[in-house]
């Protein structure tokens, strides 16, 4: 035991103790508000809006959104169920435009992308809103809100975005945490500007989207992480509010368009952990997406409306991992549980561990120009 081990304190407590003072988030703002020091900022006034091309006018000034399978029909001043679109004077506008509530610099592994420039960092942006309403959403404070209700972190138009990428010397622009599908128009605008300059664009999405907008989205991105949330219509309906079929169709489309694809399945105890469903999912996966597409099984953490459930047991994740391998999927990962051997990338031919990870951190990368350093087997992915 060392000098400071006895001090009953860790970093978090250190921060808390400091914050108990002048910076307290809970009590002080309220007190200052009462004193008239703080005013509620009018975020809505700062927000720009943009016409939604994937829409059509209907009678009586109604308008239909055609972005996702919900195909919302909206009366004047009505909002879409994804919180971002509104019928203003008979036209469909998106309020998810230039106004991210999240701007952060993250490891690409946090997407999670394991076969895409490992160890790189991304400029990650997110605007409030989502077309699905998953009971376990870990970013519900942002995803289940109107974008103009949330504080804008900073205005991000194409110039600001490029400047941020340059300042932090980042190569990848990412859209994650909420749902890229609901900020499609903005993504396309930024992407058209930065991709010709050599930057990559990646998204983390539930892929609940109609075919035509999906084509437009895929044209704008280089890599896609898809949360395949379960493998039954019942699960999708009960937990996400959506349906499974459009997601599966979308996945096939991503593959057809030859975009880099990784798939994440969050394993929720008692909801989607049935072995027969996982097996069916893996069989469909190999047949439709190929054995070389990476598949991640992610550990569920009690969250949002599913706080009554336990975390996913290690054994469940290991069983799912084994089933996927048995189905022939070559790159299967376990996420949100580290350290674990299934955090690492192995050569499918000689089984050498090629990229060793602990959590989101790369410990060692022995890939040589995308090939196994031991047997020379080519490993699918974007490596430089």
């Amino acid at each position, binding site marked *: 035991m060392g000098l400071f081990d006895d001090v009953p304190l860790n970093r978090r407590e250190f921060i808390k103790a400091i914050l108990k003072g002048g910076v307290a988030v809970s009590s002080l703002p309220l007190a200052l508000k009462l004193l008239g020091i703080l005013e509620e900022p009018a975020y809505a006034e700062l927000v720009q809006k943009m016409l939604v091309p994937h829409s059509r006018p209907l009678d009586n000034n109604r308008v239909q959104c055609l972005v996702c399978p919900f195909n919302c029909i909206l009366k004047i001043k009505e909002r879409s169920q994804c919180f971002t679109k509104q019928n203003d004077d008979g036209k469909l506008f998106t309020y998810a435009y230039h106004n991210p509530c999240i701007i952060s610099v993250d490891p690409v592994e946090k997407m999670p992308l394991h076969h895409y420039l490992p160890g790189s960092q991304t400029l990650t942006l997110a605007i409030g809103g989502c077309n699905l309403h998953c009971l376990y959403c870990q970013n519900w404070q942002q995803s289940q809100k109107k974008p103009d209700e949330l504080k804008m972190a900073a205005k991000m138009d194409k110039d600001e975005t490029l400047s941020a990428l340059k300042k932090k010397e980042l190569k990848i622009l990412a859209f994650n945490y909420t749902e890229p599908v609901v900020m499609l128009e903005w993504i396309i605008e930024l992407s058209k500007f930065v991709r010709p300059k050599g930057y990559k664009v990646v998204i983390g999405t539930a892929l609940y989207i109609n075919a035509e907008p999906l084509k437009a989205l895929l044209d704008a991105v280089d890599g896609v992480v898809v949360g395949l949330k379960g493998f039954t219509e019942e699960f999708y309906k009960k937990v996400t509010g959506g349906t499974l079929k459009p997601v599966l169709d979308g996945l096939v489309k991503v593959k057809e368009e030859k975009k880099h694809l990784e798939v994440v399945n969050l394993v929720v105890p008692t909801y989607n952990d049935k072995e027969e469903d996982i097996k069916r999912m893996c069989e469909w996966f190999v047949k439709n997406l190929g054995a070389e597409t990476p598949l991640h099984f992610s550990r569920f953490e009690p969250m949002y409306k599913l706080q009554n459930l336990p975390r996913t047991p*290690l054994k469940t994740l290991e069983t799912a991992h084994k089933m996927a391998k048995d189905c022939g999927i070559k790159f299967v990962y376990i996420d949100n549980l580290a350290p674990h051997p299934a955090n690492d990338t192995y050569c499918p031919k000689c089984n050498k561990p090629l990229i060793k990870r602990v959590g989101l951190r790369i410990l060692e990368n022995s890939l040589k120009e995308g090939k196994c350093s031991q047997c020379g087997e080519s490993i699918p992915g974007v490596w430089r």
Partner: protein
Amino acid sequence: MRWITVGTVFCLACVFSFGQERKDAPVQEKEDLLVELFKMAAEQEFIREKTSFINLINGLNLSKEQMSEILKVNEEFRAEVERRYDELKEKFKQAKECFERWIEIIKKGELPEKEMKETQMADSEMVKIGHWVQSLQQKYGEHLDKVFTDAQRAVIDDFNPCIVPPQNLRDPIRVGQASGANPELINGLRFIRSLNGKPFQQRIVIESAVQRAVKFETELAHLTEEEQKVEAERIRKLIEKACDMSDVDFELNKDKLAEEFISGSAYEKLKKLQKEMEKIGSEIQKIGKERRLRNADRVVKYFLNPVIVEPILKERLGSFEEKKSSGAEKAGQNR
């Protein structure tokens, strides 16, 4: 390096005292109160070590095979030490008698040649035992070191003994999760930035935050008045830097700012220094050995301790078996 030897001998004594029934220990009629408290403190320390060990293995996701292997190494280590129990016990007894005689002699200010030689001999016997234990630790440490994966070793290297597991073990940052490390601190800085148009109010809040932080650190790391001034200035400058940034720059650099805020604190600096000292210590011990063994020290510290390791791993392995026999359907309910 006498201090190492004394430490390992003490370790050995612990193995004996917890591992064996010591019926022959003399019982004093009335205990010295201070001695009694020391004993209670030692007991407390033992419990802390045990708690800390459980936190560590919870964070490592050890496989059944790894647990069995660690258990096996500990049992072999124990057996090898216990094989010499009678002989060592006799040696400890003789040394104790010899040292007690020596105390009486030096109290009188005498240094007789014969007794001095006897005492030196007894002392060197103790040193030899210490070296022997060290060699065992080296040998079994090498075995143990091979049990862990590189990722597990990275966790062991970062681990600090704890009663409540730290954030990174308890609730690590997840994929697809928006918030990163230090969200409270970043929100605090955001709040101060929101007062940018109100310099007077902002100053009050900044000074209050600076004072609290310095007061807190002073309690923790006993800062001198001069150090307090320096620390206050450092924190003030950091907050001001955060306030002067544009919205985008703040968002791009918030994690770095938070890290600077924390890692620059006196408390964190001292902790870092402590870790460096530990590293230097292990370097000294391992000079000439292959690089990998640097980790073995920490592995030995946490995992070569039969008194703590054996019962805990036996229990875990037992529950592995139970789970297996109670069927897979229950697995979904386990936490």
